[in-house]
């Protein structure tokens, strides 16, 4: 069978896992049933546990699904401590269902797979040695990649049934009231972990900072928590986010950013009360700077900024150019600190942020979104998962979710080194072209032919050349040459879900 973006899907696997192929970006109005977690009733006076070993012995059994959050990013000390104990306890056949996997976890995951401790993985993404390991067939069962919104949907549906969630926090009290804003290793919003806290059968908090009861503000509440474990350190604050965000000086990125800004300001969405989401890349940060000036010049303010938040965005909040920041995660210390001090920066969970099966998610209200791409093809399909060698090295993140915004802009250089970004067909379809509106490269822009309205308003702007995306693809190929097609085996190493839980594409084992 094929998904609507013309990708062949393995029939046997699709049947075995009861999957349907991706059809449409429209979610419609289905009636759905959410699940509820088990509750182990307690007055809460006995939640403090001395050791990870003890809590693992009490909670984790063969065949369970365990979860973690990735808010500590590469400063995470929790994942490796817990997994070490689980591997050493000889527990087998676990499903690992974290919000995402960061580089610091890679070696431990590989060890756990080799030991038979982990036999299934669902994640937003993976990179480095783990992506390489999986792409070379290191895990027998295919990894299931889900966007942040889709993970929330899958948890609410029961597609992901978390038995035990291990959630590191920089501050908690003895009953488990916790937040990500106070303590040593602070990361700000607990957005992704809030799903685990709400839906896991057993919730284990790990913290290096047990504070007086009751701890407020309580992002995770005592009503959700079964155990609180004191550890030496939950994370390295220096590695959680980039320190001070520096604006790029790369002329190529600045040119792209300036053209992205032109697209936004000439679009019908740039008016008082508009909303936007930008990413954390160099060009995206530069866009925020251009946009700031455009908002001042035109006396326009934004009603909200959404998603992964950086300091340039919270600066706009402080200047009054953005009224609210809706914050599912913070990419730098400035943004994390701002969540603590600014009441207009609202912590939101992954469901509120982006879950399609909802009574309205924030992404549904989004006007302008700027996203990146490893590859984009002439059908506007975007790959953020596999690299130029076909190996897994990315994450869906909120890409599919935010792309449902009214004006979805992909900002990407035409070529990176010798690798074309604009290609005839992406290696892996993650976000379907139907939800992408404009591609901005340093040479010019391409508008999705379905958006005749945008073609009309963006076609005659000085300094903003408009090409057919096929022409941009040819320009790229003329510069770098025609690559030899990548070689894969027939074995499926990963499935890419669309945000509604259908399968849009697969990743095959690479042939070296």
């Amino acid at each position, binding site marked *: 069978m094929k998904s609507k973006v013309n990708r062949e899907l393995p029939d046997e696997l699709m049947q075995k896992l009861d999957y349907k192929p991706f059809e449409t970006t429209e979610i419609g109005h289905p009636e759905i049933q959410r699940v509820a977690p088990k509750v182990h009733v307690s007055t809460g006076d006995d939640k403090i546990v001395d050791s990870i070993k003890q809590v693992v012995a009490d909670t984790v059994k063969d065949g369970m699904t365990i979860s973690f959050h990735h808010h500590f990013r590469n400063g995470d000390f929790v994942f490796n401590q817990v997994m070490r104990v689980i591997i050493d306890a000889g527990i087998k056949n676990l499903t690992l269902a974290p919000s995402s996997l960061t580089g610091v976890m890679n070696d431990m995951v590989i060890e756990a797979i080799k030991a038979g401790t982990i036999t299934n993985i669902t994640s937003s993404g993976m990179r480095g040695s783990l992506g390489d390991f999986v792409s070379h067939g290191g895990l027998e069962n295919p990894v299931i990649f889900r966007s942040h919104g889709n993970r929330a949907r899958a948890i609410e549906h029961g597609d992901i049934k978390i038995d035990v969630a291990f959630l590191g926090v920089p501050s908690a009290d003895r009953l488990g009231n916790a937040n990500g804003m106070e303590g040593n290793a602070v990361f700000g919003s607990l957005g992704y972990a809030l799903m685990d806290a709400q839906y896991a059968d057993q919730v284990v908090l790990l913290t290096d900072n047990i504070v007086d009861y009751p701890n407020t503000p309580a992002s995770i509440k005592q009503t959700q928590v079964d155990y609180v474990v004191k550890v030496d350190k939950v994370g390295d604050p220096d590695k959680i986010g980039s320190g001070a965000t520096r604006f790029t000086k790369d002329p190529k990125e600045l040119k792209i950013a300036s053209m992205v800004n032109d697209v936004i300001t000439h679009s019908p969405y740039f008016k008082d009360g508009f909303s936007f989401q930008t990413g954390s890349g160099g060009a995206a940060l530069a866009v925020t700077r251009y946009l700031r000036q455009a908002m001042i010049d035109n006396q326009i303010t934004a009603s909200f900024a959404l998603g992964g938040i950086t300091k340039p965005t919270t600066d706009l909040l402080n200047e009054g150019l953005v009224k609210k920041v809706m914050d599912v995660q913070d990419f730098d210390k400035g943004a994390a600190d701002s969540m603590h001090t600014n009441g207009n920066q609202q912590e939101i969970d992954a469901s509120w942020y982006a879950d399609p099966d909802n009574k309205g998610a924030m992404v549904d209200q989004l006007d302008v979104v700027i996203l990146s791409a490893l590859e984009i093809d002439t059908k506007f399909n975007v790959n953020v998962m596999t690299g*130029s060698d076909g190996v897994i090295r990315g994450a869906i993140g909120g890409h599919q979710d935010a792309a449902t915004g009214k004006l979805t802009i992909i900002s990407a250089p035409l070529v*990176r*080194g010798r690798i074309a970004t604009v290609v005839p067909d992406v290696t892996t379809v993650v976000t379907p072209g139907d939800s992408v509106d404009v591609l901005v490269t340093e040479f010019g822009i391409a508008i999705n032919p379905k958006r005749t309205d945008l073609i009309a308003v963006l076609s005659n702007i000085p300094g903003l050349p408009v090409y057919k995306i096929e022409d941009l693809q040819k320009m790229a190929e003329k510069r770098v040459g025609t690559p030899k*097609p990548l070689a894969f085996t027939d074995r499926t190493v990963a499935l890419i879900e669309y945000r509604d839980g259908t399968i849009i594409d697969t990743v095959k084992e690479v042939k070296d």
Partner: protein
Amino acid sequence: MEIKKTAIAGTLESSDIQLMISQADSGIAIDLQSDVKKVFGDQIEAVITTTLNEMGVTAAKVKAVDKGALDCVIKARTIAAVQRAAETTATPAWEVL
């Protein structure tokens, strides 16, 4: 053109290629390292070989560390490395450039 000594051209910067050419008894042997070897390895080796042939080099060992260079860069670095290895930098063979 005869390779008289080992010589290097190019850098390890992004979009460049570093070539080290040294003597060999016969034939051209290329040892290529590149992040884009899977998709452009054959093309890179073809550009190096063609350039060597055009310069009349029939015996050489080439070690190439590619950082995503385009064909024009690969050709230029190959020519520079050969001229250094053949000690002809003072009298470049303009006609093959």
